[in-house]
């Protein structure tokens, strides 16, 4: 990428801005160095941080890879796919939460509260834990404090979902300088790498959301022509289909409904996801699931799978068609389609996209990483390190106000380049009226009830005048983050008019501030405790694995000496397990790791032999 980058690191250093892809399934943090954007690995070397957060009984919290291990053992306290709950109320997600092993607390109408043991947390708080984990990884890697970030969001996110993401950043101690749309971020990474001019479509099907964007690239300007999508469509929905089948099979075979057992559900979910992902590469595979001594196996062919997900894939196509129509380019004018998101590895998805856009989609960029890389480029644009490149994005949804009879009057149309604004004059209906209420909604439908309520704005302290004499000009401005700002002016006096904002969904400013305070107070204690807990979780994992391995045929194939080494390492780890020194625990984990290398190799060979046998049925 270096040849097209014009990076100016300047003489005086500016604070570093990182780019973050806060995904439904996985999150990543990236930064810009002299050669271009780079993903920052976590302590374990992984580039992807699972968007999973576990809340322990003692109040400590862990996020990322360590939390993934707790999905099964601590299923009712371990949160995943929380992005699907951001900016939502309980009535939006009724169908979905029946698959979640955790409870939704009362009072979740405008913000969902997850009841995790004695503690209720909101989606922005959960996301903040993922962000904090990425922040720590970046600080450890860069060796300096990281306080400023660009965070990506699905292009089709509405105002409340964007605001919730920004809140999450603030709770995590990050100044969110910009929210950037995921497909647009991907196009930045792609465009700088592969193409300077032309029309490009970005198709992004991830774990939880689907986005399509069409852009014109013009000498460093990335102008979004149109965007569309579905913020509730992705790999999770495919997983739920397979889960459904498995639940039914198991109910029939075992005479038992396991769908209410958190541990069983999570174990099965992992088996289902593994099978789904294998199916992208092989024509047939098996879901294999064992629970309390019972086993369930089911063969899944690609053909069966495709029948199962056809309507999900189809549901991505009508947003694509709408997007093409809105962009005012013909399919023939679209030079390339860039594929983003893990679910675009599914062959059927690729075929459908190729057929619709009449071109072979680009799959050579790593679909997991390209969004984060683009976020780092946008961070570089903001910091001034990247010159000559500019992103012009659009608002995905029309913005309107409620008028008589529950009809929407549109003020800013979807696909308007942002920042965008509209000004509307309001007056009073009766003599001496002091307040005017404005109901703002987002969406494309004609009636308020079919759109998404965004907020109610109340103009207060209007001077008492005869009906219709007051004249208040309200300015609606969507900023570069896609978030609405409202201001009002009394035209007669020229003075600023006071407005009270009542968001329909999401946290209030006071709530966010209280959460920030709490997180700062807890940060230090948390940090020590977390490290100890993470070390213990890891110890559990390796001890458990070793215990299982001892029952494996491979154990007897080892020499006496090898076996003694393993046993000794296990004992040494158990001795330090309850110490408060995470470094000590980690050192012993490392020793056990070493000691079990031979065992792992032998097991691998046995497993391969077993697997080969297995495929010949």
């Amino acid at each position, binding site marked *: 990428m270096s040849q097209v980058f014009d990076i100016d690191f300047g003489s005086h250093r*500016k604070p570093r801005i990182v780019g973050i892809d806060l995904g439904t399934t996985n999150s990543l943090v990236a930064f810009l160095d002299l050669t271009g954007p780079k993903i920052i690995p976590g302590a374990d070397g992984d580039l992807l941080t699972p968007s999973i957060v576990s809340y322990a009984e003692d109040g400590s919290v862990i996020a990322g890879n360590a939390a993934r291990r707790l999905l099964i053992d601590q299923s009712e306290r371990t949160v995943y796919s929380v992005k699907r709950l951001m900016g939502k109320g309980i009535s939006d997600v009724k169908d979905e939460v029946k698959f979640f092993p955790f409870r939704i607390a009362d009072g979740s109408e405008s913000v969902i509260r997850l009841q995790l043991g004695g503690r209720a947390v909101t989606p922005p708080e959960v996301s903040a834990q993922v962000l904090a984990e990425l922040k720590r990884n970046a600080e450890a890697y860069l060796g300096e404090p990281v306080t400023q970030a660009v965070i990506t969001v699905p292009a089709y996110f509405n105002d409340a979902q964007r605001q919730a993401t920004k809140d999450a950043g603030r709770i995590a101690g990050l100044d969110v*300088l*910009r929210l950037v749309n995921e497909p647009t971020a991907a196009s930045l990474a792609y465009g700088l790498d592969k193409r300077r001019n032309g029309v490009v479509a970005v198709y992004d099907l991830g774990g939880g959301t689907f986005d399509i964007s069409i852009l014109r690239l*013009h000498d460093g*300007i990335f102008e979004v022509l149109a965007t569309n999508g579905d913020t509730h469509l992705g790999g999770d929905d495919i997983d739920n289909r397979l889960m459904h089948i498995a639940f039914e099979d198991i109910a029939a075979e075992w005479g038992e409904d396991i769908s209410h057992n958190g541990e069983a559900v999570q174990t099965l979910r992992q088996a289902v996801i593994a099978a789904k992902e294998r199916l992208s590469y092989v024509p047939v595979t098996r879901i294999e699931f064992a629970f309390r001594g019972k086993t369930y196996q089911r063969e899944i062919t690609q053909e069966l799978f495709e029948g199962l997900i056809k309507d999900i894939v189809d549901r991505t196509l009508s947003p694509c068609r709408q997007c093409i129509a809105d962009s005012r380019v013909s399919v023939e004018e679209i030079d390339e389609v860039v594929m983003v998101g893990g679910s675009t590895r599914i062959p059927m998805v690729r075929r459908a996209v190729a057929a619709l856009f009449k071109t072979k989609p680009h799959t050579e960029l790593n679909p997991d990483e390209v969004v984060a890389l683009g976020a780092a480029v946008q961070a570089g*644009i*903001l*910091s*001034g390190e990247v010159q000559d490149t*500019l*992103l*012009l994005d659009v608002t995905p949804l029309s913005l309107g106000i409620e008028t008589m009879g529950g009809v929407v009057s549109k003020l800013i149309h979807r696909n*308007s*380049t*942002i*920042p*965008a*604004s*509209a000004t509307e004059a309001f007056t009073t209906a009766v003599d001496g009226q002091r307040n005017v209420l404005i109901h703002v909604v987002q969406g494309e439908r004609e009636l308020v009830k079919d759109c998404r309520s965004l907020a109610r704005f109340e103009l207060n302290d209007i001077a008492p005048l005869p009906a219709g004499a007051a004249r208040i000009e309200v300015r609606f*401005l969507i*900023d*570069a983050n896609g978030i609405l700002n409202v201001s009002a002016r009394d035209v007669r006096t020229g003075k600023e008019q006071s407005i009270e904002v009542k968001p329909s969904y999401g946290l209030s400013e006071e709530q966010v501030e209280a959460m920030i305070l709490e997180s700062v107070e807890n940060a230090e204690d948390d940090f020590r405790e977390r490290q100890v807990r993470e070390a213990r979780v890891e110890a559990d994992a390796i001890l458990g694995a070793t215990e299982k391995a001892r029952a494996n045929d491979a154990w007897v194939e080892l020499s006496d000496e090898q076996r003694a080494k393993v046993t000794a390492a296990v004992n040494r780890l158990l001795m330090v397990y309850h110490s408060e020194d995470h470094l000590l625990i980690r050192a012993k984990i490392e020793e056990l790791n070493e000691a079990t290398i031979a065992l792992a190799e032998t097991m691998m060979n046995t497993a391969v032999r077993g697997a080969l046998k297995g495929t010949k049925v």
Partner: protein
Amino acid sequence: MEHPSQPDGGGVQSARCRQCGESSGGELFCAHCGSLQRPATDYYVFFGLKRVLVLDTEDLQRKFYELSRRLHPDRFTWKSAIERQYSLEATAILNDGYRVLRDPLMRAEYVLKQEGFDIGEQRSKDVPPELLEEVFDLNMALEELRLGDEEAHGQIEEARNRFLAMRESIDKELETLYRRFDDTQDRGVLQQVRTVLNRRRYVRNLVNEVEKELAREGQPAQ
């Protein structure tokens, strides 16, 4: 009425710099200290264009990209809060203005509004007298179609083609009026533009309605 023409675009609201108090030279960026000034809200002034109805859209796009590069909030990360605010406002006006000016119809409506013509209210309710008969026939055909009369289909397609042709000739008429206004800057011409625009809006709605009906008919019954 006077409309200063600034070839580079970027009119401002006040000639005195908000940052340093010196004369800003009427430029978006103060001639003295270089800080961003509060932008003008009139789209023509903002883009530095004469108030004309026929615009070179390629030139407009070039200006839009150029001004975007200079004004976009991305360029103001480390600047003062007031400059960041101006950048946000300026970019909103730039984007709103570009959206309006690049479209000949929205552009004409904008000029009408700026010149004090009322265009919003009666939008498309009153049938322009010269279309009365046409609309009456169309409504009959639509009604027959809904009642299952197959022959009505042909009539409706014919109607659509007539409306499309009508729209085309209206656009030609508008184009001529635009040029006349640009040459004369005569308010009387704007009055005519307003009448023709109303007719066009009406015809557009008819086309939409007919196409919706034809599309619905194309769908297999559920």
